[in-house]
């Protein structure tokens, strides 16, 4: 099935190779970024939605 795709690629193959290279480069850069992030920071970030509400609503104004 995949043979058909490679055969059907007409015109500019350089475009496809160029796009693939850009993507690989991009993917490697993001992966390096991820590896360089430390665990405490990750924990801090992922806890953010859980620590944003204030239990005290007594001062809130009502409509």
């Amino acid at each position, binding site marked *: *099935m995949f043979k*058909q*795709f490679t055969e*059907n*690629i*007409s*015109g*500019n*193959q350089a*475009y*496809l190779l*160029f*796009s*693939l290279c*850009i*993507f690989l480069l*991009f*993917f490697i850069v*993001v*992966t390096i*970024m*991820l590896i*360089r*992030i*430390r665990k405490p*920071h*990750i*924990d*801090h*970030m*992922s*806890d*953010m*939605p*859980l620590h*944003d*509400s*204030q239990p*005290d*609503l*007594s*001062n*809130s*104004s*009502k*409509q």
Partner: protein
Amino acid sequence: MQPEKFYYDNKIVRDFGIATVLWGIIGMTVGLIAAIQLYHPGANMHNQYTTFGRIRPLHTNAVIFAFVGNAIFMGVYYSLQRLLKARMFSDVLSKIHFWGWQLIIVSAVITLPLGLTTSHEYAELEWPIDIAITIIWVVFGFNMFGTIFKRRERHLYVAIWFYIATFVTIAVLHIVNSFELPVSAFKSYMVYAGVQDALVQWWYGHNAVAFFLTTPYLGMMYYFLPKMANRPVYSYKLSILHFWALIFIYIWAGPHHLLYTTLPGWAQSLGVAFSIMLIAPSWGGMINGLLTLRGAWDKVRDDVILKFMVVALTAYGMATFEGPMLSLKQINSIAHFSDWIIAHVHVGALGWNGFLTFAVLYWLIPRIYKTELFSKKLASFHFWIGTLGIIFYAVPMYWAGFTQSLMLKEFTPEGMLKYPNFLETTLQILPMHVMRSVGGAMYLLGVIVMAYNLLRTAKQGSLVANEAAQAMPLEPVHTIARESAWHRRLERKPIQLMVAALFVILIGTFIELMPTLTISSNIPTIASVKPYSSLELQGRDLYIREGCSNCHSQTVRPFRSETERYGEYSKAGEFVYDHPFLWGSKRTGPDLARIGGKYGNAWHYNHLMDPRLMSPGSIMPEYSWLLTQNLDTTTTRAKIHAMRTLGVPYPVGYENQANADLDEQAKAIAADLAKDHIKVKSNKEVIAIIAYLQRMGMDIKANKTTK
């Protein structure tokens, strides 16, 4: 340092919530009416303003920009304030944003039934409304970034990156796809023509799905799902990876909407390759969502909100697996133009967008009203009727899609088309269309029950319009140690983050769009293709007004089943004067690219008056108003002038002669109709649309030499 006291603005969240439910009911009701017309054409109430071609765009615009749009703003305004520990930047901007957006929707509700449309799918609104959308979108961005700048939390949570990417990409998409030359207050021509216009449109159309229906919802998922399940997201690193990969890859995939058309082959292949790659980041998001519920699956049994989330994520996973599969050429050749695509988009829209919206509403409304949900039983009923509704909608549509496509492709042993009459295949799938509308009605009923439930919830509580909160102010940046990790630094720099996201989406945009827009060899010209006559041009604009392209394509793909049925396959050079292109994306009726000369003028006249006279059982609506309304020829001058500005080679000064030519051609058609005992004045709209229909494909038939 002392903690600062401040208040979250819940009123704006509530307002967007009300708008979400209200427009959701309206948009889905319009969809239901449109669905019924596909087996009972009389459901248009014999009225031009409520006919399928005009209300189908109303349905799509209402559910995408009104229902989902308001839900996005509801989710963003709630989560952004809390993730940044700050009130929205400006209450005035919030209000302008809210009322401006509602006004845009109201203008769509008025203009689309009037037939004021650009015909670009999901971008049908005419140029003055496009400008209003731009202004309101900037107001939203200003308000969002203002809030980010006054935040009390240094790092931006992943949900906010999704919101930033949404903001910047939608701005780029909207502007590039709105390059129109105004002809009058509510009529414009697209600057691009033919293949180029198609490429820009589907680059836009595909990424509207990506950056309006997907990225803001992923952002909402990353905020609301951890709150609903009371546990952090499964993998924060995965969320970073899939964010960057998703926005990078999505932007390339648009050409998969144009497979087997006259778009250059390399652009099609590029679109297919990146569509396949899209499975990875899409499933990254789905898996991250579902695994967030690890260890909490017992809660799913009792908590209807989590049930909605599980179905939403499952639907997202199914739709994003199916999408790449549909972009494979072999599968696409069957699925494209058929009801299969309708099933595909509705799994995404009803399941992912709809159910996630309902979950957020059920979670959020009781909280801002400081009460409990009025009835869990009703919410549970909503969940089940909604889920069944999706199944009853999608399964018949899949069935209809396979059936019709395979019938259209079937040959007899002698090598003739087995079903040469398109209508035969349509009649075969009508029962499926009836079932689909039942599914849609069930889903809509669920939404109405939800509206009642939320209304009662609001009544039993009272709105906490300004919710008190406190947080430490941010220290100045120079006092904190330099952060070594790049990404950690990026997370506290919103503008750099926006620029990075913009850069990432522009890579794919440039590589994909630029060659087709700038290199002329990509569009071989055909010597015999001439500009439309003034009457044909007016007829073409009526074709656009009536939304004919919602059901009829104008591009013949290079398959034997299509060349046998419709004629020679389409060439890029045929469309060079088509501002806008009218290829369509769905064949509810047959392709019209080669309709010219196939039937006589009288056939078209009778067919437009009552399609069932000529094709018994046809589901096409009657266009009786075309027979009585006079053609507006005051616009001819401006239209010819605009077309020449866009590069269509009308001679200089042709404006002065255009209406005389128009009259002459119209009289000839009226005289021809008179021979068949049809008495009609030459100034009626039907004459113009017949002229256009008779022109389609004639250039190629006249002369087959290409240079």
